[in-house]
């Protein structure tokens, strides 16, 4: 993506939600995970979704990523109304437009690092080369290792490479450092920041760790299924400056 294009879409809205509500039925009990969320996510920004366990942040990201559907309200991805999309439309949306990074990496154990990336690039429309994606997360040396031969931090970086290799519009990361110690976590965050800077991919990062909010353009705090506050960082911190 060249700089011009990046500028013109700088404030373009990627996601917008209106009165987004999600209710789960757990047996006879109804759990209100989201209670009317209104928010926007813009191109190229890093947004941190901050909240305690049970605040609804994962539910929100799952709906944004097309893994779950809302009970009421609207979600738009660009011009597309995700609330009305069919199962196969959601699949193709995930396939082409969204990159996921999970807490537990979810790599395919039978594929090497390079192949774990390739399994996504093979089905994408304008992917980068798996090697390129792995170089972006500084793993070009470990490309032919299987997940079982990689450390947790390395596995998570493979997962990031896999998520960005399709050149997605948006990267959704659910507690990407949750399973890692702080030192390794920072390396992973650096990788995410590098991707954001070099590709301009909008990045939504879920965490309960307030410190991580420091690297975001905006921090959206969730509490009990509602937005508790939206804060803009005047000065973004570098991951290596953070500590927890």
């Amino acid at each position: 993506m060249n700089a011009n294009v990046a500028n013109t879409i700088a404030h373009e809205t990627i996601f917008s939600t209106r009165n987004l509500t999600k209710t789960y039925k757990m047996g006879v009990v109804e759990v209100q995970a989201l209670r009317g969320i209104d928010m926007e996510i813009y191109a190229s920004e890093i947004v941190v979704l901050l909240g305690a366990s049970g605040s609804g942040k994962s539910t929100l990201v799952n709906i944004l990523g097309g893994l779950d559907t809302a009970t009421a309200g609207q979600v738009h991805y660009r011009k597309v109304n995700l609330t009305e999309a069919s199962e196969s439309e959601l699949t193709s949306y995930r396939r082409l437009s969204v990159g996921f990074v999970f807490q537990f990496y979810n790599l395919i154990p039978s594929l090497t690092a390079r192949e774990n990336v390739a399994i996504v690039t093979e089905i994408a429309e304008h992917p980068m080369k798996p090697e390129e994606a792995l170089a972006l997360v500084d793993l070009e040396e470990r490309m032919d290792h299987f997940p079982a031969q990689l450390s947790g931090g390395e596995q998570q970086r493979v997962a990031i490479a896999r998520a960005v290799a399709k050149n997605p519009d948006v990267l959704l990361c659910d507690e990407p450092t949750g399973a890692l110690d702080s030192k390794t976590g920072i390396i992973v965050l650096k990788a995410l920041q590098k991707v954001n800077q070099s590709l301009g991919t909008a990045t939504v990062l879920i965490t309960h760790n307030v410190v991580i909010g420091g690297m975001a353009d905006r921090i959206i705090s969730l509490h009990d299924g509602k937005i508790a506050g939206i804060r803009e960082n005047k000065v973004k911190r570098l991951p290596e400056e953070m500590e927890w």
Partner: protein
Amino acid sequence: MRAINRKLFRDISNMWGMVFVIALMIICGSATYITFLSTLDSLRQSQESYYQEYYFSNVFASLKRAPNALASRVREIEGVNRIELRIQSGVNLEVPGFDEAVTGMVTSLPDEREPLLNRLYLREGRMPNPYVENEIVLGDGFAEGHGLSTGDKLMAVINGRKKELTIVGIGLSPEFIFQGQPGNTSGDLLRFGIMWMRRSPLEAAFDMDGAFNNVVLSVTRGTNEKDVIVQLDQILKSHGGLGAISREDQNSHFFITEEFKQLKQTATIIPTIFILVAAFLLNVVISRLVRTQREQVGILKAFGYTNYEIGIHYSLMVSVIVLIGLAGGILLGHDLGQRLSALYASYYRFPFLHFEINLWDLIAASFICMAAAYSGVFFSIREAVTLPPAEAMRPEQPKIYHKSILEKMGASDLLDQPTKMILRQMGRQRMKIVFGVLGVAFAIALVMLGRMSNDSVKYAVEVEFRQANLFDLGVSFREGISKHAIMEIQRTPGVYYSEGYRSVPVRMIAGHRRYLTALEGHYTNMKLRQILDTEQQPVEIPVEGLLMNKTLGEILKVESGDTITVEFMDGSGRMAQIPTVGFIHQYFGLGCYMNIEKLNSLLPEKSLVSGSYLAIDRAYEDEITAFLKESPFVGEIISKHRMIERFYESTAQTWLIIALFISLFAGATAFSVVYNNARISLSERNRELASLRVLGLTRGEISYILLGELAIVVLVAIPIGFFIGWGITYFTLWSMQTELYRIPMNITAATYALAALVVIVSAVFSGWLVRRKLNRLDLIGVLKTRE
């Protein structure tokens, strides 16, 4: 209920799909085992008590004619217990409303007493009154087939004279459990009737006043029947003795014995396959369960459960699955056994055939299933028990994968990632794949085994009847008649051509080896039959010397060029030395062939024929049959086309049903194996596949990863299954062959196709079921949990 037992039942109900398919295999295995073995036992027991209670004789001899006074000499033979002198002869019958040629056999009953041997069991009616001329007891199979009962009348040609007979009783005897024309390989209840009459009317009809032409003996325990036969032959020699035989050569007994042998084979091979497959499946399922329950085992042990208690827990789980299968197997086996027994009871006429499950068969079936299951899961249970708790509670180490052989050979660039996943997964779980392939391969072998009789016997029938026998009608005469009769037959309207042959009972003697068979004389340029050599090529009847059946040559240890001693058992007592000039090939029987003129020159009556082959205009077949039936000389009339038709109608029909049943069972096997493998893969790779869905792979794409493995298993299993099926079929045929029966190995393309189709359809069905589960993958759940 203890909590740990509750866990047992919950675990079982959580994996009911897999429990069901394993139980299904055990059901198939134990049901077939019980069905076949208990039917066999019921038949054997019925046979044994029938033989005993109705005094089935040990030795049988036919002769031309001897005075009753000869009995005293027979009685002197050491070891002879009871003797019954009888008149027995072939008759022609006419059943109203049934156009085909019907022959029968009438046996005399003593006038004023019960026979001492081969007594009658009366199903209905009474015995014929003494000295009354036209009363008969009719064999129950024939009566049932034609819907005849007491009071009905029947026309018979007895020794050339037409008589109207009244049925006063319907009965059966141990001598005719199998009712078929002598020399015919399949029973025929419609065209061959057994009947009994009092002796005096038969004496009059056959001019046998104070004489007999058939004698049966029982011998005391421990007597060597062979010695009795030699002495009896000696006594009967000058009275036209046709050679005495023991039970094992008696038509009915021989066929039942053969049937028992086949049943025994079936009862061994088929259940073994099912139980093996069930053991495979149990092994795979339990070892997976133990793996997924590592943490639970650790926690239980941490709480203080002993290794013994945990071992018992998983053993109980296996036992419950086996017991579910056994219970189903007993129910199904009981039902199928009753049906099978009823089927046998319609072919083999017993006064009583009560099917019951033999307790020992049941215990054996249970033991085999349990043993197979436990041996299958022994190592997994041991693994569960020996794990130290701390280790058990730690999640299993991430699995190490390797590049597949195909990739190491350089095909890496040609394969996409999903295909690599399939290959590497298979490489990691070799035993599971091997079991899967073997399971499906056995299913294929089962289908082939189910079609074995069909394929092989059909082939034999085609060769013997279509290739070797070119005639339309085969007529055998009651006695040898002048060869001029052939000319007369040829003049019958509709007959194109007729040629005679002569068949003489002989004893072939080579050194100390001897064998009772028939020597057939044919014209060297005969047109309506072909004798096939061991390469199945037609050979001409030699002018000098005889052609011998290859198996008979092996029995007698005769080689081409050897001279053999032939003792004619036609009552003439003549002997001849004849060179063996070649060997021939036959699937049924053990015949010898030579030139008819040469044969006649060795016998007292020079120009006789004992039968004739006819080529006819088939439009006139009924008329010709009716015309021939009128002749007092004509015995049996065989319509080749009707015989083949009948064969395909009855026997082939039965085989079709059997093949269908076995194919269903085989389909269940293939389904079980494939479904189980798929379910296990699914539960092991649930997380992986859900992650891929999240990454944007479609349902079809992840189905490919999971089901591609199964497709490979099935595709690899097909040729292996063909090979195993070939081997088992070969072994089964080899172990079933007897002196009289050599069923050729012939597996048709249709059988291969059916076998493949059965497993492919089953695999597709189980694939479809698993695919439905794939559609319901929990995409969010897997992302939040650690592996």
